[in-house]
């Protein structure tokens, strides 16, 4: 069984394993814009970005655009997708709207980009959990067959983000469940709604690793069963965000 944390030297809550297994299963299946093999290749590219010479050089440069070259990656992904995965993984604080628009001009649609963001974020966080506990990384899943659905939510529209999103009042039909009926949703909760399943996956992982998204904006409220107080959780969250130079 994947993510069998019962073998770990640490007592790891069961919901960590459940959430990580559920994501691995989802990762292997066709998404909206990438098939299973491509989604797993995105996950592999996240891991190869860590040892990528071009990413390391760019990270040191005054501006990432000053360094040209090829990323270390031998996967099945188009070059533009590899660039997206590596930059989001290794240098997220210096991304720009111009860069995202440039990816679109090279053929990476806004929705495929959002699906990519979701996969990168999930794999980075699951791998980071393992690293934080000194555990070996879980082998990537075997891709399942099938084609991407091509689903683009009709209610998605341009907003304040670089990519279209679904506003809470427009979350109806297939997207009724997306925001748990909340009238106000933090921007980070709406950010990937152009690919609704990416939002759902974010919610499941957050509930295990952090707290349920429905109570994030309620300071002082905590997820039952946590060994950390809410303030202790937010201290860790704030420190990690600050070191990543994340303004949001």
């Amino acid at each position, binding site marked *: 069984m994947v993510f069998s944390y019962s073998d770990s030297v*640490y*007592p790891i*809550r069961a919901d*960590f394993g459940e959430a990580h297994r559920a994501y691995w299963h989802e990762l292997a299946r066709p998404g909206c814009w990438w098939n299973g093999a491509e989604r797993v290749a995105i996950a592999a590219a996240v891991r190869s970005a860590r040892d990528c010479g071009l990413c390391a050089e760019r990270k040191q440069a005054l501006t990432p655009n000053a360094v040209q070259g090829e990323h270390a990656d031998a996967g099945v992904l188009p070059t533009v997708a590899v660039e997206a995965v590596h930059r989001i993984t290794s240098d*997220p*604080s*210096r*991304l720009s*709207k111009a860069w*995202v628009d440039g990816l679109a001009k090279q053929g990476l649609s806004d929705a495929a980009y959002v699906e990519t*963001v*979701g996969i*990168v*974020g999930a794999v*980075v*966080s*699951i791998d*980071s*959990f393992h*690293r*934080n506990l000194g555990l070996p990384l879980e082998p990537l899943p075997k891709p399942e067959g099938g084609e991407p659905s091509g689903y683009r939510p009709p209610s998605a529209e341009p907003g*304040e*983000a670089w*990519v279209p999103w679904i506003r809470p009042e427009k979350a109806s039909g297939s997207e009724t469940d997306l925001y748990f009926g909340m009238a106000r949703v*933090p*921007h*980070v909760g*709406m*950010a990937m709604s152009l690919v609704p399943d990416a939002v759902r996956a*974010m919610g499941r992982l*957050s509930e*295990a*690793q*952090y707290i349920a998204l429905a*109570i994030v904006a*309620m*300071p*002082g*409220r905590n997820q039952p069963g*946590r*060994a*950390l107080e*809410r*303030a*202790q*959780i*937010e*201290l*860790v*969250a*704030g*420190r*990690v*965000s*600050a070191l*990543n*130079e*994340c*303004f*949001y």
Partner: protein
Amino acid sequence: MLLRESGAMEGRVFDPRAVTDASVASGVPFGEELVAFASASVTGSEAELAQHREALEAAMGVEAMVDAAGVAANFERMVRIADATGIPLDKPVAVFTVGLRQELGIDAFGAARNTPKVGALLAALGRLGQPLARRLMARYAGRS
């Protein structure tokens, strides 16, 4: 902001500067160990991470250390979602945190350009309105 407000909800005062300056005492119980572990998670070597993992476990217990490992991992994801989609701060947060952001120095982060500048008048109103905002948040959280 969630750190500061989490304390305020319980009548405690925490210093949010600890997130940008590890030498500042947050006032959060076991804050020093938590900040050291979170720092090692992002920037530390495997050896440093192991050292702070053990220190946190010794201070708070293994369950708390595992929870902290999960939170730190989760925010490696959240920062990438926020930065890769260019989301601005939510408007009320932008208005109510003008002073806090200046204090923490995070307006210098590159992604700050995604959030429109808050005018001086609105920023002043935000400062004045903080007690009301706090009461609304408490009501929202079902704790008042």
